[in-house]
């Protein structure tokens, strides 16, 4: 019938737009049987195409939602940072980690599936997504699995040249799975010697944090084979004042700031074997009641040398308490330059890397806020962003 033929022509264009690789993923288009109610395929006056996004803006915010307590149904939301309108979303698997490409063309999600939702055969994959079409472009199987944990940003990252994706694995042997994302190929595991997380330090090197407060630094060759394992001296007291996992890392400048439970800032250069600078403290005189805390509690804006940290009033072991304020520091002067009281207390923040950056704060109750850091005015607020959005990402960070 003519009606059906028209619809399929439109569909074919959609499939073409969304890229040939998608075909491998999708069910083959099924012809519409004649028994379909005839109204179902009435010709429409309007076209019904699929939107394609422009190149991501540095002011867009990517929000990873693991979806508690429906963890097999995770999502990543993409929003315009200025008005917090939805640009689109993608689905992920169990306890996912996201990694954004350097060139803005891709992001990857390291994720875990079971063949029957939460049971059956387990499969761990890194899935590549096109940032404009939001179509999956392919996947790489992680044969040794992934670290299954409430999502933390530094469970997965990208090498300085953007070629190797590192996915931390505790199965429970500790290693980093290496995926060549240019070739979409799994290269192997780097033994982290019992150390955790992934901080890229070069094109062919990556560091992890050890239980005793050291870095382990791993260098590997083009085949993914470990060629060198170095241990740093302990640089923080992992027994009495551990650093949060959510260091503020800025990949382009290779700078990172690790923050301890008690509020010490450890500046680290991630260029080869990590170099730890002199530590300094967030709290000054009169700030004794305040502590850093939350989840993704720190963000760094490289161009202005500003470090943002969520702070709350609380005693020891309140390290997961959401921040009532964001404190802003000039890391060159090691001095606080602003205190921003948040309308809703937030465990997680991020900052855009453009010239007049936006500060994003995310609550435990699915509210996302966007602040202009030049005026400290709130630009937008959005509630009900899913039920448990968790991590924030921006391009260029």
């Amino acid at each position, binding site marked *: 019938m003519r009606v059906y033929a028209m*619809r399929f022509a439109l569909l074919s264009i959609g499939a073409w737009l969304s890229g040939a690789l998608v075909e491998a993923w999708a069910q*083959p288009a099924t012809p519409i049987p004649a028994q*379909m109610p*005839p109204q179902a395929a009435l010709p*429409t*006056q309007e076209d019904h195409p*699929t939107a394609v996004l422009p190149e991501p803006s540095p002011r867009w915010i990517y929000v990873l939602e693991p979806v508690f307590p429906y963890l097999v149904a995770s999502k990543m939301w993409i929003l315009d940072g200025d008005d917090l309108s939805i640009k689109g979303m993608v689905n992920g698997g169990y306890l996912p980690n996201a990694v954004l490409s350097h060139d803005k063309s891709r992001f990857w999600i390291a994720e875990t599936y079971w063949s029957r939702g939460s049971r059956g055969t387990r499969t761990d994959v890194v899935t590549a997504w096109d940032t*404009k079409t939001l179509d999956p472009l392919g996947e790489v199987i992680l044969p040794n699995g992934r670290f299954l944990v409430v999502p933390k940003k530094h469970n997965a990252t990208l090498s300085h040249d953007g070629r190797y994706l590192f996915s931390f694995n505790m199965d429970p042997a500790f290693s980093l799975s290496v995926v060549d994302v240019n070739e979409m190929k799994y290269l192997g595991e780097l033994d982290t010697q019992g150390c955790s997380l992934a901080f890229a330090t070069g094109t062919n090197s990556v560091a992890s944090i050890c239980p005793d407060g050291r870095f382990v630094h791993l260098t590997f060759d083009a085949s993914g084979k470990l060629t060198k394992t170095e241990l740093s001296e302990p640089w923080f007291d992992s027994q009495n004042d551990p650093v949060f996992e959510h260091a503020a890392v800025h990949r382009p400048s290779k700078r990172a700031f690790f923050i301890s439970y008690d509020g010490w800032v450890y500046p680290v250069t991630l260029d080869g074997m990590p170099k730890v600078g002199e530590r300094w403290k967030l709290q000054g005189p009169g700030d004794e009641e305040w502590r850093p805390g939350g989840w993704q509690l720190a963000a760094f804006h490289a161009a202005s040398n500003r470090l943002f940290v969520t702070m709350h009033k609380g005693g020891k072991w309140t390290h997961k308490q959401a921040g009532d304020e964001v404190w802003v520091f000039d890391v060159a002067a090691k001095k606080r330059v602003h205190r921003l009281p948040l309308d809703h207390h937030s465990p997680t923040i991020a900052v855009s890397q453009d010239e007049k950056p936006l500060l994003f704060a995310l609550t435990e109750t699915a509210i996302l806020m966007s602040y202009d850091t030049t005026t400290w005015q709130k630009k937008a607020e959005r509630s009900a962003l*899913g039920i448990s959005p968790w991590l924030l990402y921006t391009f260029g960070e």
Partner: protein
Amino acid sequence: MTILDAFDRMMEHTARRIAQRSSRRGILARLGTALVGGAVLPLLPVDKTRAKLAHASEFAKTAQTTDPTKCNYWRHCASDGYLCSCCGGTVNVCPPGTYASPTSWIGTCINPDDGQAYLIAYQDCCGKDSCGMCFCLGTEGEMPSYRPELNNDIVWCFGAPSMVYHCSSQVLIGKA
């Protein structure tokens, strides 16, 4: 009309199939009644949409024509689900990475600007799990799923590459 032709063909096809598979007496006779008797005419789409105009006006009383992200936008009189307009799409553009379904159920909504009734194709955008934004439930003229062409609970992704529901579009067909 193309659609009536198609409907006739479907009914004939069904009749032939019942005839082939069932006892010759009884069934065919009963179905004959269905085809030629009074029962079949109300099923025709044109009659149906006309019959609903009186009711559709209830929604139109408070409908607006400016903001498609609100449940009272005029085209949403019988839309059920998450508005694509809140999910990175519009009333007739699917969000990135989703497939526009070629099939739909059909509603009849009045545009308060001109007072005219229009047919709206409630085609779903498919291939990602539910968008979850701007849930609206319009039920003007909505029928149980044994009348699928008028039911809004169904995943209207037949013919799309994926049967996973993402959000609801409201595509204009024309005047009712």
